[in-house]
């Protein structure tokens, strides 16, 4: 039984004087209770829009969301009313954002921001809430939590701010945590610590997590299942083991090849994928990745490729491994 079942999620941005942008284009995946899945892709492929759509946090105007996202075999997150969503947010589903500094209110002390969540969902006030907030900060590894509660966001380091936000997100032990590039804004050394913390927390609480990142290195040590996104569609979906053992879609392959390796010969150039996400084809005309693909065939641009291949599925007519 899946905790979250996303089916054919599509988000189209459009307005009177703008051309429509299909930011997310028929994405389906499921998250089982306690499982960690990854959504991986380059900047602009629709990762954040996917997570905001699931949380019901997209701006009220200028976009159209279709598809289904059934949470816990009950509520469809995409069609339920804001009132229900407000009750679920923070308690059932919580989210961690990319930039911890701008995600905290600059003029309100950390403690107030943490206790606010406790008051909202757990009915805690006064001294009880303060104690709990202190325990929460302690749990996410913030030293001297009593003092930190009184401080303002700018007085904390980047890593500590993200820890504080994580504390708020896990305050009510949600069943699903969506982490949208939680480490991108941080130093490399801090990144590893934050990932370790998240891993520990979701393990302890049995929380399911959607880890959103552009970095395959991040999902490698964390996720049970990985979805690779390109231009708003899932191009490859597989278990972590299967994906890293046999990257099948040329895009996944390219992502893996572009990670610098310790055992590569010095002086070897890195292998970035040529071009950028902007050089894409609309999916209706063919594979959006075709203009950048080294294995491109004529059949790639004759129509949208379907997702094929059972448990380890991919959206490609000339995948790696096909010719051997």
């Amino acid at each position, binding site marked *: 039984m899946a905790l979250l079942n996303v089916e054919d999620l599509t988000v189209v941005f459009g307005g009177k004087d703008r051309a429509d942008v299909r930011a997310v284009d028929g994405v389906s995946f499921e998250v089982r209770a306690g499982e960690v899945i990854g959504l991986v892709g380059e900047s602009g492929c629709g990762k954040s829009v996917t997570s905001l759509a699931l949380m019901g946090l997209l701006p009220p105007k200028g976009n159209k969301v279709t598809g289904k996202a059934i949470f816990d075999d009950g509520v469809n997150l995409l069609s339920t009313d804001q009132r229900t969503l407000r*009750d679920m947010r923070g308690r059932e589903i919580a989210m961690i954002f990319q930039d911890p500094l701008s995600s905290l209110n600059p003029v309100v002390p950390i403690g107030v921001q943490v206790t606010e969540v406790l008051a909202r969902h757990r009915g805690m006030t006064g001294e009880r809430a303060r104690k709990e907030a202190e325990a929460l900060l302690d749990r996410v590894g913030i030293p001297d939590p009593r003092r930190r509660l009184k401080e303002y966001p700018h007085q904390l380091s980047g890593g500590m701010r993200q820890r504080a936000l994580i504390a708020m997100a896990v305050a009510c032990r949600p069943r699903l945590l969506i982490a949208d590039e939680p480490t991108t804004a941080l130093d490399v050394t801090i990144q590893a610590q934050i990932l370790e913390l998240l891993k520990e927390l979701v393990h302890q609480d049995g929380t399911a997590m959607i880890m959103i990142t552009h970095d395959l290195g991040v999902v490698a040590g964390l996720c049970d299942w990985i979805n690779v996104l390109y231009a708003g569609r899932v191009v490859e979906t597989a278990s972590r083991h299967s994906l890293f053992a046999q990257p099948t879609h040329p895009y996944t392959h390219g992502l893996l090849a572009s990670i610098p390796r310790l055992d590569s010969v010095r002086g070897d150039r890195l292998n970035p994928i040529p071009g950028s996400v902007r050089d894409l084809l609309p999916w209706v005309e063919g594979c959006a990745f075709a203009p950048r693909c080294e294995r491109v065939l004529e059949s790639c641009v004759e129509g949208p490729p379907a997702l094929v291949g059972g448990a380890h599925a991919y959206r490609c007519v000339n995948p790696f491994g096909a010719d051997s």
Partner: protein
Amino acid sequence: MTQLARKKIAKLERLAELAAVHANEGGESLWREAFRRLRHNPAAIVGAVILGIFVLVGFVGPFLVPFSPTQTGLGFVSEAQNIIPGPSAQHWFGLDHQARDEFSRMVVGARQTLLVGVVATAFGLFFGCLIGGLAGAAYGLGGKRGRSLDNVLMRFIDMLLAMPGLLLAVSIVALLGPSLTTVMIAVGFVSIPTFARLLRGSMIAQANAEYVVAATSLGVGRRKIALSHILPNSVAPVLVQATLTLATAIIEAAGLSFLGLGNPDPATAEWGAMLTDALARFEFAPRLAFYPAVGIIITALGFTLLGEAMREALDPKLRK
């Protein structure tokens, strides 16, 4: 809408942008940094010194003045012979046309001016922020119903904004009858649309800030978000505007008194009314017009200098 109103709105919208930037800067440090830059700005210091003296004179001056400001017959005055005694050791600014001590009247007038400026600005600030805050919160967070509430409130504000300030103030005094309270209400009323537009603008700019989305993602209620997240981040440009409004309020209040719409009692020491009295004797005693005029100009200048310096200190584009 008139050209004037459109220009006013554009200016307010620019000021409101301040708040949006403010959110991404780290609040306390922003205030502290702004204050540091304020201290290094000579204009701010001059403004602050002027206002310091003005406030001091307004508060304690009336207890120390050598003569009662209403006591007449302190010397020989003959308007028929064009005799009004000028400055002397006893009467530093000389006497006025009723042989009252001009210096004492100026000092007591400072208190009156301070009172009118502060009360009028507070009046405008209160109602402006009430309307603007409501509209901003409704627009930013209230969905369709919120947007129509915002629409109604803002069309009302635009109507006020379309009228020239002094004309509006004169009409209000005409409606309520001339008195000191009326002057304060009228002058304050004129500044309502400015504050309303400004607060609404900066709140709307804040409504899309990331920390608002983050708080929403934790289930925090809309009212709570509007009051304890958006509002505290939106007040910076309003504070700047309040300082600038103090200057215009003083000028406008003096203007109303000058037009004879202020306190009907001719004995009260009031800079605007003193200016009116002086006008009739301008040919043989121009100094009687000089004192109140300079008083008004200098205090208005003090508020303007400080307000503009505050605006600069808070404006990230001017930051080095």
